[in-house]
């Protein structure tokens, strides 16, 4: 290879590296942190490293061998991070109640004793002779866990380690995921039902009419999402413009429930996402030569048949990428359902936010996040394959 391209390549790389580094640190690393949080569970193994290493050799039958017991004694003696120790105690106690008192007592005892004296745990507390405490300890030490990922889809491991469904009623993650896909699908369908004829209309007319139709799509797109959601919040209220107007026209007696329910969410989300449907279809239709429809007509196809045989098949790629785009954005939506929806309309994003901010359950938030991220990435990949340029709307 000659020198000039090599130098050019160096120059190009130098220009790209700052952004690459920036995104690696502030975009990829956060995502990686979240993925890790969903599978890493090292509270116990960090506090009890020797026990974690030794207990692996135990087959789970009877009581663990003495070197495991000695390792635990040594770990407890050395543990100086009180906060981490407290976390470990809480973890173990939630698995088997009584672990808190057991560990506190044991810790105090081993710290009082001298280093040289070998402590017999069974003598210290009878409970160390029960295998269930040791089993709980063994379950808690592996640094990686699928607990969160399973919990995200309402599953868990039973005592024997087999994967089983969570008790019905204990968790609603599956229901919420189903609801997320359902709402996203309804919104996609509604957008397609409105967006396809609208895009065709915009492509068929010319002059100021086309400009007006396109502006009507672009102005909402430029307008802040929050403003649009606020607008629907105000309009859909019981005393809002829509209910007032319907009442004034005498169509209804009492206000229709439009807000804090599914209807409101679907209306507001369709409004927000409609441009993402219209624009891809419109741009596909623009590349269809106008005289294809004329050609169909000259060969005896009436308007409906020409539409069915020519225009519709040609707009399918746009319809498909528009639908993927709308669906993909819809499943990750947070603001609109959070503001316009009711308790039964919260989607997966709201649940993630709830676990992360409400209960600080990072593991579960991370696991649900991983699922949402995965689905989105798959959809984006398909979208990128379908449309030649994998960019969204070109801003």
């Amino acid at each position, binding site marked *: 290879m000659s020198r000039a391209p090599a130098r050019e390549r160096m120059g190009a790389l130098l220009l790209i590296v700052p952004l690459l580094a920036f995104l690696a640190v502030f975009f990829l690393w956060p995502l990686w942190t979240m993925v890790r949080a969903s599978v890493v569970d090292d509270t116990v193994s960090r506090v009890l490293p020797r026990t974690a290493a030794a207990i692996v050799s135990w087959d789970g039958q009877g009581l663990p061998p003495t070197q495991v017991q000695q390792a635990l004694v040594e770990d407890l003696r050395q543990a100086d991070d009180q906060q981490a120790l407290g976390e470990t105690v809480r973890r173990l106690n939630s698995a088997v109640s009584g672990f808190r008192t057991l560990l506190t007592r044991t810790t105090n005892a081993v710290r009082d004793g001298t280093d040289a004296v070998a402590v017999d745990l069974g003598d210290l507390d009878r409970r160390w002779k029960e295998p269930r405490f040791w089993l709980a300890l063994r379950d808690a030490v592996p640094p990686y866990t699928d607990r969160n990922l399973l919990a995200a889809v309402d599953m868990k491991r039973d005592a024997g380690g087999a994967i089983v469904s969570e008790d019905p009623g204990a968790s609603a993650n599956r229901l919420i995921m189903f609801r997320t896909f359902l709402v996203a699908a309804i919104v996609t369908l509604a957008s397609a039902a409105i967006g396809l004829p609208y895009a065709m209309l915009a492509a068929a007319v010319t002059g100021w009419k086309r400009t007006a139709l396109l502006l009507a799509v672009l102005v909402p797109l430029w307008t802040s999402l929050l403003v649009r959601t606020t607008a629907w919040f105000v309009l859909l209220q019981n005393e809002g413009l829509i209910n007032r107007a319907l009442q004034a026209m005498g169509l209804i007696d009492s206000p229709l429930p439009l807000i804090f329910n599914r209807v409101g969410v679907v209306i507001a989300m369709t409004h927000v996402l409609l441009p993402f449907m219209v624009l891809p279809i419109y741009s596909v239709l623009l590349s269809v*030569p106008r*005289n*294809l429809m*004329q*050609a*169909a*007509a*000259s*060969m*005896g*196809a*009436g*308007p409906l*048949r*020409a539409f069915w*045989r*020519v225009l519709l*098949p*040609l707009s399918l790629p746009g319809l498909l990428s528009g639908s993927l785009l709308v669906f993909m954005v819809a499943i990750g939506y947070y603001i609109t359902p959070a503001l316009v929806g009711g308790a039964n309309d919260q989607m997966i994003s709201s649940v993630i936010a709830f676990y992360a901010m409400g209960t600080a359950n990072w593991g579960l938030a991370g696991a649900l996040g991983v699922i949402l991220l995965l689905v989105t990435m798959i959809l984006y990949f398909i979208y990128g394959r379908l449309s030649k340029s994998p960019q969204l709307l070109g801003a």
Partner: protein
Amino acid sequence: MQPFIQFESVSKSFGSLAVIDSLDLTIHKGEFLSLLGPSGSGKTTILMMLAGFERPTRGTITLDGMRIDQLPPHRREMGVVFQNYALFPHMTVAENVAFPLEMKRLPRHEIARKVERALDMVRLGHLKNRRPSQLSGGQQQRVALTRALVFEPRVILMDEPLGALDKQLREHMQLEIRELHKRLGLTIVFVTHDQSEALTMSDRIAVFNAGKVEQIDSPHAIYDTPRTRFVAQFIGETNLIEADVVNVQNGHATIVLGADLAAKVRSGPELQAGQKALFSLRPERMRLGADPAGDNALDMTITDCIYHGDHMRVQLAKGNFTFTARCERLAGNWTVGTPVVVSFDPRDCTVLAP
């Protein structure tokens, strides 16, 4: 001959812009009529009105005695070949050709048979499962042509169908279309801005300018006896001469070209002595050197000589009067500044309408 298609005082305007102004046009059955004119002359608008994509603002169009100007395009049974072919990109070649037959709701096996036969006729049978984007320009052209012919429409309309092809292919397709026209006895209305295309292919040519027909005639008549200044200039090359008519007798007129050059030309009833008139004289009809039997011999001087390979172009002048002549080869060693006698047949000089 029976008129097949008839435009009667058809006008078309877009908003305040009048594109066609009170047009009368008759097209006969089985003829190949070219609509020739510069862009913006209204020729495509006429085709679009015939096909039904535009409605006349005023006037009527009849086909075989039936009014068609209010009929929607899909009921007119006219095969249209579009400028960029307008092949359906999502259908194969065979599906494209089958489309008009399906619209007629022919039985499936008959469609298959007709498609097969039509594609074989234009030697495209082996490409029937390709998509239009996988074909060359010439092949796409032939598919478009086949698609327009296959459902046996009453008229074939072609809108500059050869414009996108390169020169060789274009000439080949011209012959192919002409051959199809003769073999199938088609009525073809052909829009073009290429005069040589119109001259080679047509039975008749209608020359358009600014929404009006300037002249409608056989190619031969259009070229040899143009009737207006526009036709004379648009088709081929010509010398336009404004001259004084000195006297008129026996179908001939004597005119003075300027700079004391007098010439004898053929005359119609429209010329009168003492008037000024406009004449057209094609460069290739002029000879350098005296013609002993001829009527005209003008003494001029060669001012320029341009080599064109198969011919020479010679600029001639006397005083401020100039001519261009075209000749095969220069006889002798005539160079710039040489005096020369120029002769031409009185029948080759045409009077143009003022």
